[in-house]
């Protein structure tokens, strides 16, 4: 294995390109994330944010360039993909909880069938993380019985149960009623404070200011700007970023 | 194995075409009547008049819960004991109509149910009265969403006309089976009628899809 120290542990994109048919959705995307770093990704709709972070755990294939996660190259080898997925947890916009399983079962399914953890141990760990996101009392309910905010916190707990090194968030609060956004962001902030490596696609600029080490702004498949949040919000370098911020912060 | 005797098919062709003519004639009449009956039945079904609405529901459930073949026998052999005697042809039309209209009632009803409360809200807030709302807003939307299952039933009517061979209606399947009983050329006959049925049914389906696409144009994605 080669690569710098950071890439050895964190994430490294090197001139990653991806097309959907004719459309060039990722264009020479290059950046790296050191262990413990927190990155916020923003940009207009369709700019490729989701596609980019979904390439990290190979939910999408990239066609050129390399992606390394903890030194392992993300390519079409089953073993590599499995290794990467073990290290990377992901939280989706629509929660994607398993609606046919209770909260507790949601949190134990992967532990038991991917890791082979015995039931009692899996449940104990699930309860630990459900407490961590402050909803242990909902463990026996089904996702449909929970509010959106609670569901998203379960989704976070479910990912944490696999004890990943890195967490990816794809607009985790944008499907939530405004009232429920806060509770999810709080959970994410406390995760960040514990030193988890995080990449988060979001338009919650308050969160970005509070937590992010770096904001990456994407447009039309390119990284347009990458800066510390204080700089990015007060003094964006690029015209495109400025326009975007003015629309978001009306 | 047997080699296909094209000459035999050619000789049987006029007979087959006469059978097809009968198939189409019976189906066409049944489609027409069943659509009308389906509309009327659906109106009763959603009329809000309890006994009528339950009666329609019972009718739909019963027809959908019993084999079509037995329904045909009942119409053809059973009804005369009740005093209704119809020719084979009209018995066939009646049996098909009874069957298809039950399915039409159900798909029209589902179509109506698919027009959400939202359209009612919109019309009410604009002051549109009941009747224009029903005719100009609900009906077009409901019919469009009922279209796929309605087409399915229409095509089903043509297919089910094959059952009428069992009461001696000389339609396409009858012609084939009759010839097989006399000449034992089952390969030739089945090949012929399968192709004919496929052409007719795929043709009607294609027409239906065109209609569907036409009506769907407004909903085309941007």
């Amino acid at each position, binding site marked *: 294995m080669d690569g710098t120290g950071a890439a050895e542990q964190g994430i490294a994109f090197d001139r990653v390109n991806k097309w959907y048919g004719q459309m060039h959705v990722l264009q020479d995307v290059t950046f790296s994330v050191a262990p413990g770093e927190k990155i916020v990704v923003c940009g207009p709709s369709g700019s490729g944010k989701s596609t980019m972070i*979904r390439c990290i*755990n190979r*939910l999408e294939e990239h066609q050129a360039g390399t992606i390394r996660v903890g030194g392992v190259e993300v390519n079409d080898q089953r073993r590599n993909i*499995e290794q990467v*997925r*073990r290290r*990377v947890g992901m939280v*989706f916009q*629509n929660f*994607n909880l*398993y*609606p*046919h399983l209770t909260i507790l079962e949601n949190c134990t*399914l*992967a532990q038991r*069938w*991917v890791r082979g953890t015995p039931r009692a141990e899996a449940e104990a760990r699930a309860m630990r993380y459900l407490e961590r996101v402050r909803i242990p009392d909902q463990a026996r*309910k*089904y996702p*449909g*019985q929970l509010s959106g905010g609670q569901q998203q916190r379960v989704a976070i707990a479910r990912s944490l149960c696999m004890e990943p090194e890195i967490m990816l968030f794809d607009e985790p609060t944008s499907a939530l009623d405004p009232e429920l956004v806060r509770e999810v962001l709080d959970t994410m902030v406390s995760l960040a404070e514990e030193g988890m490596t995080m990449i988060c696609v979001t338009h919650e600029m308050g969160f970005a200011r509070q937590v992010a080490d770096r904001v990456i702004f994407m447009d039309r498949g390119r990284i347009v700007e990458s800066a510390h949040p204080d700089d990015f919000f007060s003094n964006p370098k690029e015209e495109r970023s400025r326009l975007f911020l003015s629309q978001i912060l009306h | 194995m*047997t080699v296909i005797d094209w000459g035999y098919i050619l000789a049987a062709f006029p007979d087959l075409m006469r059978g097809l003519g009968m198939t189409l004639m019976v189906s066409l009449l049944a489609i027409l009547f069943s659509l009308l009956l389906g509309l009327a039945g659906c109106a009763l079904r959603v009329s809000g008049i309890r006994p009528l609405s339950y009666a329609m529901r019972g009718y739909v459930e*019963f027809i*959908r*819960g*019993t*084999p*079509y*073949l*037995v*329904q045909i*026998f*009942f119409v053809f*052999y*059973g009804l*005369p*004991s*009740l005093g209704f005697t119809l020719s084979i042809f009209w018995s066939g039309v009646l049996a098909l109509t009874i069957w298809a209209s039950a399915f039409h009632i159900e798909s029209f009803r589902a179509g109506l149910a698919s027009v959400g409360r939202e359209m009612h809200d919109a019309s009410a807030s604009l002051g549109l009265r009941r009747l224009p709302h029903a005719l100009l807003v609900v009906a077009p939307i409901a019919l469009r969403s009922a279209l*796929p*299952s309605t087409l*399915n039933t229409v*095509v*089903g009517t043509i*297919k*089910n*006309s*094959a*059952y009428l061979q*069992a009461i001696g209606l000389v339609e396409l*399947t009858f012609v*084939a089976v009759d010839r*097989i009983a006399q000449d034992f050329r*089952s*390969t030739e006959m*089945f090949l012929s*009628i*399968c192709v004919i*049925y496929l052409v007719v049914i*795929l043709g009607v*389906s294609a027409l239906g899809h065109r209609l569907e696409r036409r009506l769907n144009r407004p909903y085309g994605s941007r």
Partner: protein
Amino acid sequence: MDLLFEYRVFLLSGLIETLKMSAVVALGGTFCAILLTMGITAKPRLLNRASYALVELLRDLPLMVTVLLVYFMLPMTGLGLNPFWSCCLAISVWGGANGAQILRAGLASVGKGQRETAAAFGFGPVKTLLLVTLPQAMPVIVPPYVGLLTALVQATSLGAVVGAQELLRTGQVLIEQTTIMQGGSPAYLVYGSILVVYFTLCTLISLVGARIERHFLKPYSASSGALAEDRAHEIDAAISVRT
């Protein structure tokens, strides 16, 4: 009514034959459905196209023709000709084609997000299907599948056309003999009773189906239950069984 009673043993033997056929076609149809679904969703293009064509063909031909075709053509393949089995075979493949359509639509109704989540957790394809996709597809699959099962049960009456001694056929034989030997047709009575028997049978199946559906809808009952049901019925309409 006396007539039905006098011939009860004979008619009962027909009913039992019908029940036997129903069981066989339900199992056979499901087996064919799984096979064809695997074919349709298979990667190799040829297999996939062929299965798709077969499904469409079976769904487009009148069932009556399929049943007669199997009955008359099977002997040529040397497989012999037992009305019971040839009829069961024809109905099973027909049911399989319709069932495959239901299974495929059901599986497709489970959002891409669910499969992705499973992938993100490192589930393989088989585990994803069994643990995530299929359980969620069940509320969508069960209602039309129950509909298909009742259609299969009804289709066994086609056995009468090729001479399987099932309920309708025994009824016909009874009518035939009585007409010849006793002067007068009990057709109204016999066919009416057969209709009632089938209706009862299908209603029972639907009731059991509704229970099963409720079981699979339980997780959704609290809030978005209506949602899953909507989804189910929307798809139900789109893939209704083609007789």
